[in-house]
């Protein structure tokens, strides 16, 4: 990752190292410009020229970094550029998660540039971030699982999607939402689970959606990691009621650890088809697991019924 300092300068009379300073100054300007453009993005009304401008910032830094052999900077800006190029070509739709990742990349870039400018032998390992951005750019299932429709084709309500709240308080950011096409009766839920001791404690929730085909479409938004608040972030597209989802989830984590937030969408019918779990016969409905601290609901604590999910009887009933 750190051959940058050892790369031989251009031969002979063309010693380009005299242009380092102007490169760093320019890179700093580009970085600042990129960040202010990202922070000011209104995901509902993105102009092509704004995406082009953000693209050019990353592109320009990459060009100079590659010329000077600042490989770590070139690698990171290369994947950013790839993602931004797909966005500006409308091949993929922008998400808050992407904006957040690009802002995170800006922070890393700034540190990388500072190290290169100080001719430090240290380098910053950004391989995880690079892989994450690459996955986003390729529409990888783990990083950006839903083949997103163009944003203007499926406008979501403003509040959860604007970038500002994320950057104002990144540690407690609301889950990044993905832009999706919803079937009638479906809605998008941001699901936060935690605080947890281990990220894997929430994995059984993902498995529920595999076991119960009609339950909804589940997406991990966090690459399997806890955030600074020890929370995990998911998105669920479902026609099931919150209470039913909570019942299901609390088989695996305490009910108090599950936080559902509806991400309403303009002009989406969210009523029909939402019968969901409520339509199930009582005996088929799962029982919540009692929370470690004890559930506040006495009925849940006293329930004598087995905590086994009769998966096979679910699909048709849930549709």
């Amino acid at each position, binding site marked *: 990752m750190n051959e940058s300092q050892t790369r031989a300068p*251009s031969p002979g009379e*063309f010693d380009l190292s005299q*242009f380092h300073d102007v*490169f760093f100054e*320019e890179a700093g300007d580009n970085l600042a410009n990129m960040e202010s453009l990202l922070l000011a993005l209104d995901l509902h009304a993105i102009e092509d020229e704004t995406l082009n401008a953000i*693209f050019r910032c990353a592109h*320009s830094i990459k*060009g100079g970094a*590659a010329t000077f052999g600042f490989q770590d900077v070139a690698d990171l800006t290369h994947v950013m550029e790839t993602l931004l190029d797909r966005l500006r070509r409308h091949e993929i739709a922008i998400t808050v998660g992407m904006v957040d990742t690009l802002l995170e990349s800006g922070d890393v870039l700034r540190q990388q540039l500072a190290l290169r400018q100080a001719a430090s032998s240290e380098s910053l390992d950004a391989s995880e971030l690079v892989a994450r951005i690459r996955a986003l750019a390729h529409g990888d299932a783990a990083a950006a699982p839903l083949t997103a429709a163009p944003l203007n084709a499926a406008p979501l309500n403003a509040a959860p999607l604007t970038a500002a709240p994320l950057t104002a308080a990144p540690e407690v950011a609301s889950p990044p939402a993905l832009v999706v096409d919803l079937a009638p009766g479906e809605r998008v839920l941001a699901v936060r689970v935690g605080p947890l001791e281990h990220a894997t404690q929430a994995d059984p929730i993902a498995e529920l959606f595999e076991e119960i085909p009609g339950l909804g479409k589940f997406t991990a938004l966090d690459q399997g990691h806890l955030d600074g608040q020890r929370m995990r972030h998911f998105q669920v597209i479902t026609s099931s009621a919150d209470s039913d989802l909570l019942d299901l989830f609390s088989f695996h984590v305490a009910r108090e650890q599950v936080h559902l937030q509806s991400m309403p969408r303009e002009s989406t019918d969210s009523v029909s088809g939402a019968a969901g779990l409520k339509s199930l016969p009582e005996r088929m409905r799962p029982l919540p697991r009692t929370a470690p601290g004890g559930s506040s609901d006495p009925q849940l604590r006293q329930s004598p019924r087995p905590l086994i999910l009769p998966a096979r009887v679910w699909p048709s009933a849930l549709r």
Partner: protein
Amino acid sequence: MASILAVDDSASMRQMVSFTLRSSGHQVIEAVDGQDALEKISRSPVDLVLTDQNMPRMDGLSLVRALRGNEQYRQTPILVLTTESSDEMKQAGRAAGATGWMVKPFDPVRLVEVIGKVLGR
């Protein structure tokens, strides 16, 4: 010695290209984007145009097309110096009428060689 128009929105890249070309005995006019290039070139004609692709206001390929639409620059060598390396883009460059396509990272020695070749033909 030739008169060369160097077009790039990046100041550092512009300076490096100019330095390289001047060191090789050429005269250089700088422009910050395609539009600026067209303005500069209307005031002082050049023997060769070297342009970046991704720039605000007017990108490199649009500049190539504009120049090819101008009788005076129909035959002038135009080199695109860019990080764009896809065949698709190169093809678009050829279709627009670019003479050559050089992929960054910028290599001064190679640039001087290519320019010598293009001007000497």
